[in-house]
């Protein structure tokens, strides 16, 4: 190619061509930078939390995770996450146990049973439950629910089922039990709205096929809908669990606090998240701050694990069913 050709072409194309490409390129670069920044942000969160926990990690190592201690007295400082890990596990698992059957019931009601005029309003109402801020649920939990549980439910459970160590002596109303109920309320709308979408996705011909074989509606649900939606429902439950693990404010308000491992649900305790939130007014030493960040690190690991597992299950299920469904809650 000769230089003359290029210069002859030059006045006509490249000027406008370059301007076009420059505009495209700059929008692409700016928008791409935003996407990159989001990715970097997630990395930064992980790095900052690890960085903040470094002092405690250096001091206690991995045994911090199961060590039961929280003693901020200077010169006798000793910290460990054991009791908070226990509190997190017992509250979020039992909350899930309470919420899961309720959520399935709500989802089945909304997809199979509800009269047409009830479907949209009840769906909207259940989703509204998810919009209530946790601090408001916590306020209600500490001032209304806690006292009600203490005065009515806890004594009944204790006298009737007191032989089970879970139902020990009723306490102040601020307890693991109240936290479990509050968490169950908070994850109910999440699990039920995802399950509802999954149930809506079950092909009609499968459901009608089962009914045509003479099954009752429940047998159709058990034999066709549950197996079909199984993976998605598992993901919904994991997402609910992740939400329960990470909930700080409402739990802090109702759980009562304390560093112990006991089987009595009516006693106080703390979860990882509630311990962090309850300590916001400051720590006396660097080691205490770092230990709090270590709690956040443990919490981050668990909630990321829950979330990524759920996303993975959702994507796998979506691929298998050949449908695309938003994986986010």
């Amino acid at each position: 190619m000769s230089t003359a050709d290029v210069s002859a072409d030059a006045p006509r194309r490249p000027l406008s061509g370059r301007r076009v490409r420059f505009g495209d390129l700059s929008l692409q670069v700016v928008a791409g930078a935003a996407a990159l920044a989001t990715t970097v942000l997630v990395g930064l969160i992980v790095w900052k939390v690890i960085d903040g926990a470094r002092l405690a990690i250096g001091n206690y190592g991995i045994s911090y995770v199961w060590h039961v201690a929280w003693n901020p007295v200077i010169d006798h400082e000793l910290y460990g996450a054991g009791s908070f890990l226990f509190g997190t596990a017992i509250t979020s698992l039992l909350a899930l146990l309470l919420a899961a059957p309720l959520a399935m019931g709500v989802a089945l009601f909304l997809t199979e049973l509800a009269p047409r005029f009830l479907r949209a309003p009840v769906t909207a109402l259940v989703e509204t439950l998810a919009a209530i801020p946790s601090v408001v649920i916590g306020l209600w939990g500490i001032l209304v629910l806690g006292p009600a549980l203490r005065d009515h439910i806890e004594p009944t459970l204790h006298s009737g089922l007191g032989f089970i160590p879970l139902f020990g002596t009723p306490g102040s109303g601020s307890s693991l039990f109240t936290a479990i109920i509050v968490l169950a309320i908070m994850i109910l709308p999440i699990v039920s709205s995802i399950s509802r979408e999954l149930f809506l996705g079950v092909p009609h011909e499968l459901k009608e096929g089962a009914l045509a074989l003479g099954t009752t509606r429940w047998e159709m649900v058990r034999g066709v809908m549950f197996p079909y939606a199984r993976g998605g429902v598992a993901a919904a439950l994991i997402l609910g669990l992740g939400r329960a693990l990470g909930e700080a404010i409402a739990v802090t308000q109702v759980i009562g606090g304390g560093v112990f491992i006991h089987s009595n649900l009516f006693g106080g305790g703390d979860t990882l998240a509630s311990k962090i939130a309850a300590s916001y007014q400051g720590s006396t030493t660097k080691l205490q701050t770092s230990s709090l960040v270590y709690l956040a690190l443990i919490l981050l690991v668990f909630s990321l694990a829950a979330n990524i597992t759920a996303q993975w299950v959702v994507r796998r299920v979506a691929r298998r069913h050949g449908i695309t469904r938003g994986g986010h809650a």
Partner: protein
Amino acid sequence: MSAVPHRLHLEGLPRRRAVNRAMEVLAWIAATIAVAILAIVVFSVAQKGWSELNLDLLTKSPIPFSLTNAPQGLANAFAGTLVIVALATAMALPVGILVAVYLNEFAPASVRNGVGIVLDVLNGVPAIVIGIFVFGLLVVGHGQSAFAGSFALSCLMLPLVARSTMEVLALVPNSLREAGLGLGIPQWRTTLSIVLPQTIGGIVTGTILAVARVAGETAPLLFTSSFVGTQTNWNPHHALQSIPVAIFELSESPDPKDHARAWAAAFVLLLFILLASLGGRWLATRSRRKLAAR
């Protein structure tokens, strides 16, 4: 599946019908419980908040450790929440939209999936951990500020705004993009002045829903903007009080007068959030239907 009978068990029919009936009743009960919980919570807040609601709440400052009955309010918290949420929206909105534009208009499928997972992961990070992160990033060494609180809230808003914008962008018909490009309009102008304007409605409703979501967030603010004065302040370089943090602190107080103000503040907050999220949801279905009909 074993639940599907291989042949008709006519003699078992009454029992099967009874089981079916029982399950239907249980589902009805579950739905009733869910709606009843919402009704009880909203009713409690409305009942206890309404009686405490007066203009003092919006105009007067709180008086710490007050032993008198002098009227108190939460003026500082209302001002602070406005500043913090407005700043958070200003930070999250442009970035969220740009992320959505990049993923929907430019990115190859693999990048779109990858960053999509990142958005979901960010959405799943507990709010309290975001608070600790911003504490480590901006507060240590510099002190708390409304700006730090806003940044924490914007981390929560970002995935919400990006996701909702992506959803509406996906609804814009490709023929519009092709028409723009076919007329010789460069891609960036097609995107900015043809595609994006179609999605304004969706972006606005997505933003309303995201604002409704973060306006009630307490956890990210505890470590970033909670050591506050009682006077009303609009300066984002200072730590500012906010409604959720005020409710949190008042709810832990032993003083019933504090509880009363907590209920009133909770009522205002809940009213705002419910109106915003119901309104946003309604607008969202409307604009989606409009786009999809095209």
